[in-house]
């Protein structure tokens, strides 16, 4: 069984986290739509910003996922894209946030 993802987030961002996760859900929906439309450039752009935004807040697994999405989009690797987008959904759903001072 896969381990539950964990993100270590600075305490000062606690109040913002619901909005942050809502933005990731929005990213996920946008990725699905872009995949449906075959818009790989759009997927690469979303992956790029996902990596920047998530890394900044301490969501390192999502950061890597963003980079993988960007790389798979640039490579035109559709099966990988499907897998990464599914993984993003899982992480949005399961990531445990641990606050740090």
């Amino acid at each position, binding site marked *: 069984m896969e381990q539950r993802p964990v993100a270590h987030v600075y305490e*000062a961002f606690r109040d913002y986290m619901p909005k942050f996760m809502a933005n990731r859900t929005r990213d996920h929906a946008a990725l699905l739509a872009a995949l449906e439309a075959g818009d790989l450039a759009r997927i690469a752009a979303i992956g790029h910003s996902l*990596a920047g935004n998530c890394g*900044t807040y301490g969501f390192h697994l999502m950061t890597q996922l963003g980079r993988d999405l960007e790389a798979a989009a640039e490579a035109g690797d559709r099966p990988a894209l499907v897998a990464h987008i599914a993984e993003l959904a899982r992480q949005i759903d399961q990531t445990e946030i641990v606050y740090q001072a």
Partner: protein
Amino acid sequence: MRILIIDDSEDVQVFIATLLRLAGYTDLVTASTLGEAALYLAERDDRGCSPLDLILLDVMMPQMDGYELCRRIKADPSLQDIPVVMVTAKTKSRDLEEAFAAGANDYLTKPIERVEFMARVRSALRLKQEMDTRKAHELELERKSAELEAANARLRSLSALDGLTGIANRRAFDEFLEREWKRAIRKASSLAFIMVDIDHFKGYNDRYGHLAGDECLKQVAHTLAAHAKRPGDLVARFGGEEFGVILADTDMAGAQSVAEAMRRDVEALAIVHEASATAPVVTISLGVATHVPLPLETSERLVMAADRALYQAKSSGRNRFAVAGDFLPVS
């Protein structure tokens, strides 16, 4: 310290703003689009300066190239001193080069690391403060220089004026005469000089006191000065109750006309003078001389001729002008 955050990502805006607020920076403005950024970049304070102290600029934004915006900021004289820190997920050395080529002062990569971010922000703000201080010193220096120049001009003007009457003094007269004398030589034009003396002024002082005497001198001085209308004319107080009048480009007929007008106007002041043997009011006598000076001649001859004419006017009964007949030639 006012900081502008330009980033289309709400997550990054919140992240940066939160860290800055925690560090005590509360004057923050955020822009997600070029239009919003332009509004903040166009703000000016009372002195016409931008109120911004730092710009944090995302490189990649929809419909906007961060490098291009940075170039525009650095090309604007009213914005170019504001430090720009570019924030981007691009990490290749080519990107770094492009950022600095665009004029960025610093470069931060995403994911943003908290400690590094605050260190870079503080460093950029320190840079801005130092530039502001330097500019303030320069402005202060300019202001002081202007004050000094004004004070010098005032001193120059004071040293050229007679303390009592406020008209030119003897020193200014001498300088002015030399200048006009040389100009008259160059232009081969006639220069006129009128020597003026208040009749029975000692008697006036004895009768009415020195304060009244001073007042009389002032009134006569201003009446005479009203006739020096052109840049080449000057009325100066020689000392005591004597005045000298220089009239550039003026022949004998013109000089006599001015002398008579001066005499008439002083008489018309109707300053009562009971101690005068000439008239019941204060009057003046004038000696008029004109000359078209030749090279190697000195202006002293003109002054002496007018002085002799003044003596003639006095001898002939005062309250009149006399012309220097023996001063030749007027060509």
